[in-house]
């Protein structure tokens, strides 16, 4: 498979001064937010966690925006062009239940224990070895994922605007570096909220026009059913165990691998996401952060799936050697074909915004973990607070430079989404198993955290690199392999944790208050603040509402 870089000239957009003006205004505003947020950074808590003081609608939109990155826009459109309507699984079963679980069940422990990061929770629940290992794994993964976003950005900018890749990488890296270094997490979160709306303004016109182009929803599904078979436009068709389907996964691996293990691992323990909720101003706002994010998440699938499916109709040979276009090119191709100058500028801005949001989320969580979890606890302890703010700014710059390096690693995968899910199965899933067992089983011992994490990570990597890549077990697609890796990592981590716990000392009950289900920490007792008892702010209602809505969305795609 050739790398998508060869497409440069084929997709070049007819941009003009209007488009560049729109883009220029946006970049000026991005920097402006950074400078304006600067005066709010006084302590390390301001820099890394916005002083735990943001309202829920802001953290909620930042939560969804941190996820609405390269993964969503290009990756999910690519997924739809390649696998069809199965893409809905990544949203309705692969996101909503986990987001609701994070908000309703886990957030009291995260927010109530006052930890500043996900690894810090493991430090309290388990011991230093689990903490250090998880901090290092997370820091490493964050740089890799930031690199994916940077690479995707460079690819798109090169193809669409004709800038050389290195120019795009340096320019985008510089902007992210500048606004996070200056304004800290507040700047990152504010930019994410803005990005959310710009991304919508970019995707909605593309979706509407591409749907009109292929003759509406009926025209779209009719053409696809003819060319790709009926299963291509259903959610569950052909997913019986043993039957073949484009995804290479059956309903069991979808539900367990994607819906449970991968999705819970990503949404509930990936600090790039959880950090947004930890910056909320009180427990109620923290709980509502992922719940508010769940509602746009349910519907965003249409804005990426419809363009992807339309691209599969308009370019029937997309992704095969008979066409110049890769799956990842679905959205850029539609922009070129359908958008006049003006909206084109908005769309380019939206794409760049999405990539920068994804990169910034990872960089801003990386600098927090590296500073508060690695540097402040093991290297330079007990310095005054302003030292850690300065160090955080320095490590932000180093993180951005490192992710420029990892951008090139991402170039060996033709479906960016597959690459990301591979990384998540290595890094998030083992973290999730350690969390879930540690949070719900008091007996899980101090030592079991470290060994569970190590075993889970190793098992997922062995499954991917040895069992799948060497062809020991035949799994048809990368995505199918990711689901299996995730399940393998989960099971191995769980078995090792239970085994180690049975032979080692449990943590004293007094030290588990507020960390294990069924206990309460002093911080959780705080009364709800004024206005939080309004019915539309009730976490349980928001959470269950999202679950019911997501389940209802499946109905038209199931028959």
């Amino acid at each position, binding site marked *: 498979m050739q790398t998508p870089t060869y497409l440069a000239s084929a997709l070049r957009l007819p941009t003009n001064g209007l488009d560049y003006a729109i883009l220029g205004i946006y970049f000026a505003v991005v920097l402006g937010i950074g400078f304006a947020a600067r005066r709010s950074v006084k*302590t390390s*808590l301001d820099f890394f966690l916005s*002083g735990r*003081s943001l309202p829920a609608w802001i953290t909620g939109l930042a939560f969804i925006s941190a996820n609405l990155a390269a993964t969503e826009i290009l990756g999910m459109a690519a997924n739809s062009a390649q696998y069809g309507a199965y893409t809905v699984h990544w949203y309705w079963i692969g996101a909503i239940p986990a987001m609701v679980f994070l908000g309703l069940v886990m957030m009291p422990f995260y927010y109530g224990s006052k930890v500043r990061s996900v690894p810090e929770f493991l430090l309290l629940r388990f011991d230093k070895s689990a903490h250090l290992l998880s901090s290092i794994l997370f820091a490493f993964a964050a740089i890799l994922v930031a690199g994916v976003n940077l690479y995707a950005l460079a690819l798109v900018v090169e193809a669409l605007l004709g800038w050389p890749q290195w120019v795009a990488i340096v320019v985008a890296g510089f902007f992210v570096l500048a606004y996070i270094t200056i304004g800290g997490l507040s700047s990152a979160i504010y930019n994410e909220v803005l990005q959310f709306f710009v991304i919508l303004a970019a995707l*909605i016109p593309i979706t509407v*026009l591409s749907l009109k182009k292929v003759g509406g929803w009926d025209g779209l599904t009719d053409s696809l059913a003819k060319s790709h078979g009926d299963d291509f436009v259903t959610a569950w068709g052909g997913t019986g165990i043993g039957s073949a389907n484009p995804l290479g996964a059956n309903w069991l691996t979808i539900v367990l691998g994607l819906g449970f293990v991968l999705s819970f691992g990503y949404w509930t323990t990936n600090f790039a996401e959880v950090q947004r909720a930890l910056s909320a101003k009180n427990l109620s706002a923290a709980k509502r952060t992922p719940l508010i994010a769940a509602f746009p998440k349910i519907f965003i699938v249409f804005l990426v799936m419809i363009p992807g499916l339309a691209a599969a109709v308009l370019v029937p040979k997309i992704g095969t050697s008979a066409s110049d276009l890769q799956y990842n090119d679905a959205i850029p191709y539609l922009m070129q074909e359908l958008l006049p100058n003006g909206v084109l500028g908005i769309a380019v801005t939206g794409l760049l915004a999405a990539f920068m949001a994804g990169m910034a989320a990872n960089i801003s969580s990386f600098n927090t973990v590296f500073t508060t979890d690695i540097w402040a606890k093991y290297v330079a302890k007990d310095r005054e607070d302003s030292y850690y703010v300065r160090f955080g700014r320095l490590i932000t710059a180093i993180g951005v430079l490192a992710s420029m390096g990892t951008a090139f690693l991402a170039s060996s995968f033709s479906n960016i989404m597959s690459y990301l899910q591979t990384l998540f199965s290595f890094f998030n899933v083992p973290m999730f198993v350690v969390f879930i067992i540690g949070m719900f089983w008091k007996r899980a011992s101090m030592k079991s955290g470290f060994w569970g994490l190590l075993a889970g990570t190793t098992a997922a990597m062995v499954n991917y690199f040895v069992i799948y890549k060497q062809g020991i077990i035949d799994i048809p697609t990368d995505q199918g392999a990711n689901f299996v890796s995730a399940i393998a990592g989960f099971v191995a981590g769980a078995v090792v944790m239970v085994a180690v716990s049975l032979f080692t000392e449990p943590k004293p009950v007094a030290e588990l208050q507020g960390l294990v289900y069924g206990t309460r920490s002093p911080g959780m007792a705080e009364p709800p603040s004024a206005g939080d008892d309004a019915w539309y702010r009730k976490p349980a209602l928001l959470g269950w509402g999202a679950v019911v809505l997501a389940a209802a969305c499946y109905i038209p795609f199931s028959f």
Partner: protein
Amino acid sequence: MSEYSEHEVQREVTELETRSATAARLFDIRRVIGGLFALYGVIMTIAGLMASDAAIDKAVGVNINLWTGLGMLLLGLFFLVWLKLRPTTPPTADADTPADDEKPTR
């Protein structure tokens, strides 16, 4: 072995929370979203009103600049009106004293 205890983390974070300046000094993002989208909305609406036939043909017969512009303008106005109706609640008086404005510059 001196393990980090939960109390230590909570004490540290609680102490930092009392000195935090975000709540008192961070500007309101609604102003930025409202301003940017109103500006984009005006630019796009004008572009839509002056749209050439070629641009409309390209967009499958839809004057997409006009519609996108109007949509963005509405969203921008929504944020500005919301800000007007529900301004940020002023922070508690003791949270911010101008005297300690010696923020380290990098």
